[in-house]
């Protein structure tokens, strides 16, 4: 499983890298899969409302009304119908890739189980929506899908009379059937919306809206596809004739040929096992879970920064319990905490320079307290020799920065780069641990802990607390985000930064020499 996940991750990172060459960083479709799914859902909803206005229920009327809207108002109903179909297909495509990506990046275990598990019924509901939609057209494909679905359901021992019997002859088919279908096709998406809302309950700041440019591009693509290849019916349904060959929508109807291969009972078994496995995946080995963040009330002043910055909404502010003169205190929900350390990075007490008290911030990681991180900085300084010494600070989720270590380059890795309090950069430079600090981590939008890169950029730019102090020489601080597949890129960035630092040393030495010469001349 690990090898599969690693392979999948490599594929994703490589394709993301290609897409980064053409899309602006924030528009990369692979970093907006959930948001794109939502965007397609809105397109499906709006086009569906339009199509519904002209749809007529009834065995003959259903087909004729769809044909009328497709051909008699080609540039309105025809396009709306095509948008409805292609956006639905796109939704399935992005939903599948979104699921695979979360699997590849190991974002389904621990506190993320809830989002993963609630995603499983979403998949089932999307398929039900699509299948009922295909029935409504009542063409040959609808006939095939309706009969195959009925035959599939009939093997369950819960129906008194075979449902498929309703499709034996045209006389068996009642107009109320289409009214029921229409009700299902509207009711199921409403349930889907409800489950989508539940799906995002444990995600702090979910990205539900695709960037405008990406949304516009996606819509233009759907529109172009609708114009070039309008969605058409496959001839009216005729229950006296078997639709031998059908143009199947492989996004929604991929299971149907498998029913023919494995039998309806076999398909139920396979589907049940697949859904069960997907649901159980978060609890399957190997289990990796670090202990949750720990609040040190002696140093917590209830400032709320950790709660605001937490990507999993795992920290809440509760009334003070220790009698200290603060209004609130941070409380960590261990079930939600992913132990990323973003809270420690946000804590105003996480400053490594202490003269009086021991270094214990208001909130910290149990398995890697900031005190230990400070020690790693000190040890890294001892390993650094020569000019242009670079301290690389990276994260465990992306490239292994320790592999970059050599003469003049030392590295420290954190669970997420968002754990880095900017004061640590100040510490490294002011204590002479290194001549420069290079900060790296997952590519923007790719952060395993969702917000680590965003918060770090904002803290270094001075737009989010805690900020990098003004006294820190900015020419000695570099940022280079890199995926696990971009090691050479990062090596080049480190080498370039080291060369720049040596230039700074040289310039500084020359300045000192010139100043000394001037002073000597005056003497």
């Amino acid at each position, binding site marked *: 499983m690990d090898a599969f996940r690693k392979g999948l991750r490599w594929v994703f990172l490589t394709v993301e890298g290609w897409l980064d060459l053409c899309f602006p960083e924030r528009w990369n479709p692979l970093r907006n899969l959930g948001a794109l799914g939502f965007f397609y859902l809105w397109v499906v909803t709006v086009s569906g409302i339009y199509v519904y206005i002209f749809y007529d229920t009834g065995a003959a009327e259903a087909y004729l009304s769809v044909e009328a809207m497709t051909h008699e108002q080609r540039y309105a109903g025809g396009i709306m119908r095509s948008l409805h179909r292609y956006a639905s297909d796109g939704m399935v495509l992005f939903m599948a890739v979104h699921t695979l990506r979360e699997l590849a990046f190991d974002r389904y275990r621990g506190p993320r189980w809830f989002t993963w598990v609630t995603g499983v019924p979403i998949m089932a509901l999307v398929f039900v929506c699509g299948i009922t939609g295909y029935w409504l057209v009542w063409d040959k494909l609808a006939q095939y899908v309706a009969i195959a679905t009925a035959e599939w359901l009939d093997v369950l021992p819960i129906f008194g009379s075979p449902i498929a019997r309703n499709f034996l002859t045209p006389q068996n088919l009642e107009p109320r059937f289409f009214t029921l279908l229409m009700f299902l096709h509207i009711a199921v998406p409403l349930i889907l919306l409800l489950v989508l809302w539940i799906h995002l309950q444990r995600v702090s700041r979910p990205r539900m809206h695709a960037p405008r440019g990406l949304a516009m591009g996606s819509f233009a693509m759907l529109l172009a596809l609708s114009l070039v290849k309008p969605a058409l019916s496959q001839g009216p349904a005729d229950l006296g004739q078997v639709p031998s060959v059908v143009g199947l929508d492989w996004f929604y109807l991929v299971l149907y*040929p498998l029913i023919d291969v494995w039998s309806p009972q076999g398909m139920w078994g396979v589907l049940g096992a697949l859904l069960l496995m997907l649901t159980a995946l978060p609890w399957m080995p190997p289990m990796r879970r670090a202990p949750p963040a720990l609040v040190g009330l002696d140093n917590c002043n209830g400032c709320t920064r950790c709660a605001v910055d937490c990507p999993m909404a795992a920290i809440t502010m509760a009334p003070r319990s220790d009698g200290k003169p603060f209004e609130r205190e941070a409380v960590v929900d261990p079930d939600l905490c992913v132990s990323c350390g973003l809270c420690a990075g946000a804590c105003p007490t996480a400053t490594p320079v202490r003269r009086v008290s021991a270094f214990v911030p208001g909130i910290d990681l149990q398995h890697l307290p900031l005190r230990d991180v400070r020690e790693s900085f000190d040890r890294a300084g001892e390993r650094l020799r020569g000019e242009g010494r670079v301290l690389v600070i990276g994260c465990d989720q992306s490239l292994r920065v320790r592999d970059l270590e050599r003469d003049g380059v030392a590295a420290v890795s954190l669970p997420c780069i968002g754990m880095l309090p900017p004061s640590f950069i100040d510490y490294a430079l002011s204590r002479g641990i290194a001549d420069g600090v290079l900060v790296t981590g997952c590519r923007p939008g790719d952060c395993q802990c969702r917000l680590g890169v965003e918060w770090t950029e904002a803290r270094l730019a001075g737009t989010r607390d805690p900020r990098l102090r003004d006294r820190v020489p900015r020419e000695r601080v570099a940022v280079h985000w890199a995926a696990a597949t971009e090691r050479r890129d990062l090596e080049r960035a480190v080498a370039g930064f080291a060369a720049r630092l040596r230039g700074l040393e040289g310039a500084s030495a020359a300045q000192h020499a010139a100043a000394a010469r001037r002073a000597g001349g005056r003497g």
Partner: protein
Amino acid sequence: MARVLRWLGQAVAYGLTALLIGYLADSPPYVHLAPDRALIKLAFAHGAVRNEGCRRRTAEELERLAPNMRRQVVCPRTRVPVLIELELDGRILHRASLPPTGLSGDGPSRIYERFPVAPGRHRIVARLNDTGRAAGFDYERAADVDLRPGQSFAVDFRAEAGGLVFR
């Protein structure tokens, strides 16, 4: 130039996605039934007679029951299985004893079977036994039919229409 290349790259990415969606939306076609075959469907839901008829309880039986349970006549709900036989050109295509559905065995017996056959002229005979008789059938219907390629021929049972129905 770099800007143009980026736009071009985006166009390629959107184009490939559109190509994937547009193609898989209805291709490749799926052959559900070979075009040179016809289909006979045998489907019905029919409740056979009850296993036992209604009878009066004896005085001793009534005595043993609680006063509020003392119904004079009892009618066991269980039905006998339905026996169905479908014959094509003198050869048994399907023969099955269909148990009643329901937890108490009082529901209708049901069947839904599909038989792909070669098109052409055929003699189809259907027989049904719903009384549990030891030999013979209660219903029988035979017909000579000329099946077209792709035709769906239904064998149904409708008590209100007099029994076995060919459509």
